[in-house]
């Protein structure tokens, strides 16, 4: 029997495949939230990333890897520009971060900028020209169990495996990382230490935007074969929920992202295996599980609020200490 075709391995491999965009977006949101900025615009930023990556992929000609890297870069830049709106409103203008983030999702989301760009770029109806394909790393792709999980994934999956330790090292082992955490916990103290609170918040909101853009690019370059308005279908919101689930720690975001990747992939995997249930049952699974998991982590043993930055969502005004 082929071990790699067993249900468990297939689900685990596709959990990684579908979890990766969630991982990018939630690590980005996590960094922004660690600096004290809650950005509910992830869904919108992801869609802007998705549309600009798809546009680049259709219009740039060249070898696959050049086009794909350029597309991811363009997606990251476009989403960074989008997140700048939130940064200005939340950090400089001290606006309500919840409303500002929602505004960002309405502005950029499925019925906003991303759909507008998709329309004026005539992206609908064409199959994508370049895509992230699974790379057989070191020729080990056929190894039992580990092959499909570790050695047969696409380049963005490998990039996300670099991202997580990088984010951990940055947050826990470097001075700027220490400052980010200080700015998120107690901006007064950080300010007194001479840390530029506004600059840290700006930079991390923008990094959050860039990573959401990469997550969006994953949807249009690896998952969906053509451009569809609102193709992320709530992944941005699940990424925000994952930050809470992960107690604001990158390593746990990895676990959470793959867990939700598994829920998202279950529909395809089980249908392919002739499990007959209405598609809505599978499709609602990621959303329902988000609620269940959030309830679970917000009560009981987790109530000690491990990790939530104390100043999350609170504007910092030096004169009003």
């Amino acid at each position, binding site marked *: 029997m082929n071990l790699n075709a067993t249900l468990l391995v297939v689900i685990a491999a596709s959990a990684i495949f579908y979890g990766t965009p969630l991982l990018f977006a939630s690590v980005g949101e996590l960094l922004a939230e660690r600096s004290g900025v809650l950005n*509910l615009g992830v869904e*919108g930023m992801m869609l802007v990333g998705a549309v600009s990556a798809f546009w680049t992929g259709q219009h740039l000609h060249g070898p696959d890897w050049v086009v794909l890297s350029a597309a991811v870069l363009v997606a990251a830049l476009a989403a960074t520009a989008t997140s700048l*709106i939130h940064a200005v*409103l939340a950090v400089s*203008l*001290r*606006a*309500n971060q*919840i*409303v*500002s983030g*929602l*505004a*960002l*999702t*309405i*502005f*950029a*989301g*499925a*019925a*906003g*900028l*991303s*759909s*507008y*760009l*998709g*329309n*004026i770029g005539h992206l609908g109806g064409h199959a994508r020209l370049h895509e992230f394909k699974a790379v057989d790393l070191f020729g080990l792709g056929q190894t039992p169990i580990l092959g499909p999980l570790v050695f047969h994934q696409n380049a963005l999956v490998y990039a996300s495996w670099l991202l997580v330790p990088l984010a951990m090292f940055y947050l826990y082992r470097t001075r700027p990382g220490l400052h980010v955490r200080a700015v998120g916990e107690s901006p007064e103290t950080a300010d007194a230490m001479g840390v530029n609170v506004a600059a840290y918040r700006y930079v991390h909101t923008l990094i959050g935007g860039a990573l959401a853009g990469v997550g969006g690019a994953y949807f249009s370059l690896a998952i969906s074969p053509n451009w569809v*308005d609102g193709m992320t*279908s*709530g992944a941005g*919101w*699940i990424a*925000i*929920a994952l930050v*809470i689930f992960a107690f604001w720690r990158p390593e746990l975001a990895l676990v959470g992202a793959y867990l939700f990747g598994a829920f998202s992939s279950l529909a395809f995997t089980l249908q392919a295996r002739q499990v007959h249930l*209405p*598609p*809505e049952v599978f*499709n*609602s699974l990621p*959303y*329902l599980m*988000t*609620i269940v998991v*959030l*309830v679970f982590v*917000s*009560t009981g043993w987790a*109530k000690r609020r491990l990790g939530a930055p104390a100043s999350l969502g609170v504007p910092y005004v030096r*004169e*009003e200490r």
Partner: protein
Amino acid sequence: MRIERRLTTPRWLRVVVPVASLLAALVLAGVMELATGHDPIATTSRLIDRGFFASGALSATLVTATPLLLTGLAAAAAFRMLTWNIGAEGQLVMGAVGASGAGIFLHDQAPVLIIPAMMAAGGLTGAAWGAIPGLLRAYFNTNEIITSLMLNYVAGLVISYLIFDSHSYWRDLSTFTARVFPQGKYLGPAASWPALGAGSLVIPFGFLVGVVSAAGLFVLYRYTRFGYEVRVIGDSRAAGRYAGMRINRKIVAVMALSGALAGLGGASQIGDFRHVLDPRGLQQAGYGYAGIVVAALAQLNPLAVILVAFLLGGLTNAGYSLQGPDFPAGLVGILQGLILFCALAGELLVRYRVRFRRLMVAPA
């Protein structure tokens, strides 16, 4: 330049800021159209003409304004207590499910019975759907923003299950065509809500329901003990707790109230306009999210919500009806987002005073 907190806010600012936000958003949208090769002045003037001045425009605007009014009230009711119900979209859908269920069940009854029953059923299912995130927030401390939003997607799947993937009570199975191309049961003439005509203007019954609800919400929040407690908790949760207010119950009540208002919007979608449970049409317009824009621009004042819903209804209706090659989809969302950004930036002027003065120069 210094920014300092205002102790009192002049009354005129509360009016000027939303109006200026609306204008600024139109200008910004114009800049974006210019950047993408469209003529902003022509687009904007067509938008305003189609929304408010063309023949039949006002009636069409009221069709869009009706759900916006009710979802706007839903957002205003919840946001006043800083309870972030982002789930009006799903509550509207579930309200439509409830109302159409009641309409189908009572189809051979008199309108006097059917219409109130549809309103009650829509309000109750909306309230129940809204109470879920409320209960989770109150008793499990779960972030209501995310749970209410997740339930929007679930509601969308519930309604598409009812029509497309099951032989449910809502689905029309009477003809062969209806079995091949799934659609909802038609509710029948007795379940159609009466529209009021004033000259050429047609006012949907649901809009009047919305106006009455707005007045009711205004009175509830301004003059009752319940409203007082909601406002106190909204301004300072700690003060509310210290005064012995039962915050958890209030959260559930406010979420249910908010859900009921959105659910009424769903009932009106069925009774006033669609007369059939229509999964695609109900979700396409994104009325739930637009309600947040309405509430924010109205600064959470229920009476102002009426006016803002009308204005935004005009822009939204025009945006959707003009949709085409030189008026790409997505413009409506862009405009709504920009309005919200400008309203938020304007809040700064309401709460703070910008004072220009020379820097003190240290004596040499």
